[in-house]
């Protein structure tokens, strides 16, 4: 069908500084990448990449970022990503870099990849874990992620909300 084709870049923000996670926001990250493209590829690159560029998903806890750009110019974006060395927010600079995990044609494939990737990570963590308590906690989360489909989501989120409220206090 006739549509705009995109490329979705699934990246991971890796930083030494925990404060970096605090300032990880979609607008900040988007601006940073745009600046970097402009710096690396010049005005032409910045203009051609700015069409359709967006940060579609961002998770500060895991540092996962999903970027969208047009298919024609995703090479420009890809090549500009290694040049990001720090995240700047409110005057602070936190050194970090972006690690590209996957390049996909749809959000869906990226999501699927992310599921597999996270599972693999969890399993590796489980294998390498030595402490018993930790091990149990990890096991729990692993089983949770695998058994998700069987639970009803609505109940889940509601009860979760309550618990979260409790935890906040």
């Amino acid at each position, binding site marked *: 069908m006739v549509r705009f084709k995109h490329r979705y870049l699934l990246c991971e923000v890796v930083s030494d500084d925990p*404060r970096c996670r605090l300032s990880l926001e979609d607008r900040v990250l988007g601006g940073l990448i745009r600046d970097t493209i402009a710096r690396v590829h010049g005005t032409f690159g910045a203009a051609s990449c700015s069409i359709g560029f967006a940060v579609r998903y961002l998770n500060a806890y895991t540092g996962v970022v999903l970027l969208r750009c047009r298919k024609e110019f995703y090479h420009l974006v890809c090549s500009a990503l290694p040049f990001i060395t720090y995240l700047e927010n409110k005057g602070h600079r936190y050194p970090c870099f972006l690690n590209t995990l996957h390049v996909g044609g749809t959000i869906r494939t990226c999501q699927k990849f992310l*599921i597999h990737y996270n599972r693999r990570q969890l399993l590796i963590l489980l294998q390498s874990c030595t402490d018993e308590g930790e091990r149990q*906690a990890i096991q729990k989360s692993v089983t949770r*992620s695998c058994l*998700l489909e069987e639970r009803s989501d609505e109940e889940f989120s509601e009860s979760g909300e309550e618990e979260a409220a409790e*935890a906040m206090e």
Partner: protein
Amino acid sequence: MSNAKERKHAKKMRNQPTNVTLSSGFVADRGTKYHNGGGRPFHQAQKQEPFPGTSRQRQTKMTHHSPMDPDVKEQSSSKIMFKKKGGWKAGPEGMSQEIPKYITASTFAQARAAEISAMLKAVTQKSSNSLVFQTLPRHMRRRAMSHNVKRLPRRLREIAQKEAEKAVHQKKEHSKNKCHKARRCHKNRVLEFNRRQKKNIWLETHIWHAKRFHMVKKWGYCLGERPTVKSHRACYRAMTNRCLLQDLSYYCCLELKGKEEDILKALSPMCSIDAGLTFAAVHCLSGRRQGSVLLYRANRYPREMLGPVTFIWKSERTPSHTSESRQLWIWLHPTLKQDILEELKAACQCVEPIKPTVCTPGPLPTTSEEKSQTELPDEKIGKKRKRKDDGENGKPVKKVIGDGTRDPHQPSSWISAATGIIISDLTMEMNRLRLIGPLSHSILTEALKAASVQTVRVNATVVLYSTHVLLSKFEGEDTEKTPHHWWIETCKNPDSVSLHHRQEAIFELLGGITSPAEIPAGTILGLTVGDPRINLPPKRSKVLPNPEKCQDNEKVRQLLLEGVPVDCAHSFIWNQAICKNVTENKISDQDLNRRRSELLVPGSQLVLGPQESKIPILLIQQPGKVTGDDRRGWGSGWDILLPKGWGMAFWIPFIYRGARVGGLKESVMHSQYKRSPDIPGDFPDCPAGVVFAEEQAKNLLEKYKRRPPAKRPNYVKLGTLAPFCCPWEQLAQEWESRVQAQEESFVASSPSGEDSDSRRDKLPGAPTPENTDLQSDEGGTSPSSCSEPREVMDTECPAQVGTAWVAGQDATGSLLCVLRSRKWLKQLSTWCGPSSRDKRAARRTSGSGEPTPTRAAYLPLLERFPRALVWVSLALLRKGSPEPHSMICVPAEEDFLRLRGDQLYCGPQESKHSDPFKSEIRKQKERKKVEKRQNKQAPSEPEGLAGGPPAAGHRALTLGLWSGPLPGVTSHCSRVLLGFVTQGDFSMAVGGGEALGFVSLTGLLDMLSTQPAAERGLVLLRAPASPQYRFARIAVEV
């Protein structure tokens, strides 16, 4: 972005994960999910290792497990993880309270797990509106995928299953306890039909109609509105040249039983001699003719009309028969029934309801039906089959015959303690079929054969005594067995046999008469006929008038001159016991066909002998067009009254003889071409007419609103104030005040005129200030102009002493009435005519010789009916076909001038009006937009506050319609409004546009008196959606 678009977007994104940042907190559901799983252990951990300053920290802050980290660091193969861990561990603490200082494996795992779950949700759950198989690429789609789940790829089956279940629920639930075949089986079908006719009454021909007609639910019945085939012109041809058949069984019949004097006394206040013949008309009272009368509320003659009815008296059979008990049937339209029944009960003082079981001699026919009907739902389907096998109950399912909606305990008859008059409601107890057109005679005589007298041969030759002997023998053997013993009983009486023969002879004579119009109007002929199904032709055919029969002999001439003799009007249909017997003993179609198939020679005449049913019927001649000069007798025909249950048995034979069937639309066309008012639409002064007008206005408005504003006429710009309803009351009021104002000025200018004198006599204390007020108010808003004239009326009332009707008016409030006084209508029709015909007309009505209506001549009329409407017919001079709700206007001087100059002059044009509502509508729209924007900005504000008051405060404006109270309707356009058209179309009978409608009497007289003789009676017609006026000639037909 519009609201709908937003919602769509939200629906699409509901399963997609949202961004999770530390600062954003836990607004997103994904975030909550994230914490859900880890909440518990984390909580515990916090408790175990309390940090003094962490109580208010975020949950993300984790307890520090130093021994864990090196292991992770060492063994983790992922560089990122390693880095991260190391970074967090190495990071300086105390930088900010909100920043997590450490990370543990469990936190890390929780974060991943939450992300996995969010992603899983996004991936597995579909968020688009499309069905599952629609998301598949083309090459993977298979035939019947939506039907058969197994054709889908396995991963999608589960979702597809859910979808399919949903779709099944959305579908209308079939009674799936039975398969199609079982549902189609006769018994279950009858059950189903009985259930379906509980809400709306079905006529006996319902199934036949439902297959061929557009059905509507109207007046508590299911009626055929119009045929599904194109047949407008064909139906007209049938009416003029052939025969049109209609089922009018939905007409209601009220029966009055009692002494003749009592009934007449009770009914006399309800009708007036002024408006035509009453119940006491000689022809009708004897039972020879059907009469028609307009009923009013008792003693309220010109006003508070109830509706038009027709009536038949049961003929007195013999002079010896005491006139103590007479029977009167009043036939009326179902919309009028409630009002008239109440009024009749009040007039006859019939208050005591009679229990249905004891009301008539012999059990009432309805009760048995109702019993069977109430039994039906209780019986289980499975049981029924068994029961039939047992032979315990041969006919478990009985078809509902008659009124299926009536409550069995509701009384249907009432008796008066004082006079002994019994009023009973015979609705649906009889069938009424109507044949219209010249061929109805041929069809009747072809289809119906008079019943054979049971002992014909004996009766004709043998002496009376021997007949008696024979009959008694016959009776002894057969009375118990044969169901038609009433007929055998009658055949014993030589008088009734001879009467039957005479009736038969007259009926045969009918076949030789070319048109029903030749017979005196309303002639009644009673008859007993054999089963019409027996001599059904094998194929549908068309009867032709038999020229051999059309001999101009003495008998026919006598019949045409004198009509049917009184005694021949007798029929056994008046006897309810016999009717019930006939209904119950009808041979079913199945039996009849079986016997026919058992005939030795296939196709030969079936002879049932004594088992053949004898059906008493009543034939009533319906006069066609009785008013006006042209096409007199058009649309005449015969009505046939049958006992219930026999509708289809007569219906099919008529159709097999070439009758075309018409529905409600055809009956409207019939009345329009007859130029008679249609019930209930053309009776604006009776309650049913008001209800009808309201409903019609509602429907038209709905239809109008369905179109986009650019594709529908802007009635405000066209100057049409009321395109969907006719404000009769306001019209009459405005004309009254208008004429008064004119006369005031006339008096002021020439005080010595003759008219002014009479005027002054009439209004000695007519207060001038009020009238000036009135003039100023005329152009103003309607509420004030509505109230003013009424006040004026009230002050004037004492001045107009002497007439009884005035006293009653103040109480009722509504002064509107329709002029139905025959004397005045005749006078009006002579005034309306053009000058050339005037002389003849004047000579004819020799009493009022004046061709020109002078004020002196019509003042008494105006006094009597200050706010009256007149039923007029209009014929267009040249082009144009009028529509309903067209406006009838008074032509101006210059129109006549131009018409005189140019014979082909079509008529003036209405100039464009300005639309004062357009800007208001635009403003409202803008206001709404602003409100919406505000709502969007502050969604926390309750919507009731923001959206409530404007919706309530402003009336809903529709572009192109006048909203709010109407201003002066008469003077709104360039030509003064006189009235409205209620029926109008191209008339195939005349070959030009014809319309029927009402005009204000005051306005009509005013117009006639001012118009020159040559152009008297010319008016302008304008359709609601057109600016073009067209000339039409007005006529009052009596």
